[in-house]
């Protein structure tokens, strides 16, 4: 997100003194998204953190829209807001997350985490700034990020990485099922379900929502 913000700041020179409405909207939405993201990691109320994450991810989708990447924006809403966050809330409901503050919702690693986050953000900003220093993207013709252009780029130029990624996700899916089933036949039912539930969820985390769902249902 800070990367996209930096990009907005970079494209500013041509319209710095007379920014267009889209640029102003982009910056405002970016600030709101950043605020929601900060709230996500600082709030002491677990479910509120998940709901702030919805705001942050939705804000990102709006940023994609403003950058004319309509397809990416809707996929962002579909996968992240519609599925990942629902999965997060589902997981939270299985825990003892109280209404109100959780006293232990903090980590001793906060400074390490902050350092890593700042370093990652700095790297991303630097890469984007260096890559697009003064270049302007021509928006004539079909917009980059529309369904047609995305599909053509994905299946013509990037088809090998695309297939490799899908195999990776398939492996995650199969792995999640295997992990959630491992101790089911021999142990007592109580132990089996206790072992299966966390295994299913942690293994599901890197996969897509479709990969994450089966172990949830099988562990019950």
């Amino acid at each position: 997100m800070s990367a996209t913000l930096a990009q907005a700041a970079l494209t500013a020179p041509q319209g710095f003194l007379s920014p267009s409405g889209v640029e102003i909207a982009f910056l405002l939405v970016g600030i709101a998204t950043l605020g929601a993201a900060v709230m996500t990691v600082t709030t002491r109320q677990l479910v509120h953190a998940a709901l702030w994450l919805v705001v942050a991810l939705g804000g990102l989708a709006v940023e994609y829209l403003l950058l004319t990447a309509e397809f990416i924006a809707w996929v962002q809403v579909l996968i992240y807001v519609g599925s990942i966050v629902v999965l997060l809330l589902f997981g939270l409901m299985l825990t003892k997350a109280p209404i109100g503050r959780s006293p232990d919702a903090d980590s001793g690693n906060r400074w390490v985490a902050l350092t890593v986050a700042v370093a990652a953000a700095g790297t991303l900003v630097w890469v984007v700034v260096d890559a697009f220093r003064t270049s302007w993207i021509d928006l004539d013709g079909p917009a980059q990020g529309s369904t047609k252009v995305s599909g053509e780029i994905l299946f013509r130029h990037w088809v090998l990485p695309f297939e490799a990624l899908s195999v990776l996700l398939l492996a995650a899916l199969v792995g999640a099922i295997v992990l959630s089933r491992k101790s089911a036949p021999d142990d007592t039912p109580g132990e089996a379900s206790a072992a299966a539930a966390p295994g299913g969820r942690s293994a599901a985390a890197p996969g897509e929502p479709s990969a994450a769902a089966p172990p949830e249902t099988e562990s019950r």
Partner: protein
Amino acid sequence: MNDALDVAVRLVVVFVVFLVLPLVVGQTEHKVMAHMQGRLGPMYAGGFHGWAQLVADGVKFAQKEDVVPAAADRRIFQLAPAVALLPYLLVLVAVPIGPSEGAVGQVVDAGIFFVLAVMGVGVLGSLMAGWASANKFSLLGGLRTAAQLLAYELPMLLAAASVAMAAGTVSLPGILNAFHWWWLPWQIVGALVFFVAGLAELQRPPFDMPVADSEIIFGAYTEYTGLRFALFLLAEYAGIVVLCGLTTVLFLGGWHGPWGADGLGWVWTLLKTAVLAFVVIWLRVSYPRLREDQLQKLAWTTLIPLALAQIALTGIVKVAIS
């Protein structure tokens, strides 16, 4: 200025449709259920066959006290009905009802993705309500809602993807322009999967496990009263309108029909939507509620394989005719 006026008129029309059609479906449900069960249903409000019953209900809901439980998470509890209702309004903007440019609120380039993405957001409202109520029945309802959404979102997407493959576009008007009558038998399996998965996403009977009144009172909505409760009910009926409209557009050819292209297209769209809405009500009256494990089994072992088979069939036919 003319553009602004045009946009304003479209938004007002969509808003009026959004307010009227769910009420029509609700009243139809009262009457159809009553007659299927051998009784009359509402007969007094408004005079003619109780047509104003839902208006009276609305007035009653508006007069009730709006109670927030002491232990609830106030703000999320109050926000939840809006999160549940507004996505359906947004979806309605993108559904075309006729062949011309003016027959859709706003043409969205990636229409299928837009409608499915935004419909999925509506479920967040139920989850927020279930968690924020500080009530064990609400929490159970929220859990069941989430589990159901996770199971049924996938077959719905796969069935919609099959239509997008057949049409070669993901824009809703584009799909309608590419429609031929023989798509109906070709995509019938996808249509059934889409409709069933949509019913489950709306938590309509026989998939109403999350609000099962004989087990968990009213699921995530147990603690709600007055206008906020009415908004949840309205969201359910708006969901029926949206689901039936989408099934019509994606699988039944929308405005296609005799004289469909000569100005009568919107009649066909509304007619097909109404028939589907009748089927939704019919299913509620005639099927018992599925158990939670039966729900999950139906999604993972029946609907998803069927949807995948439909995609394979679509791909084969598509390659064969091109």
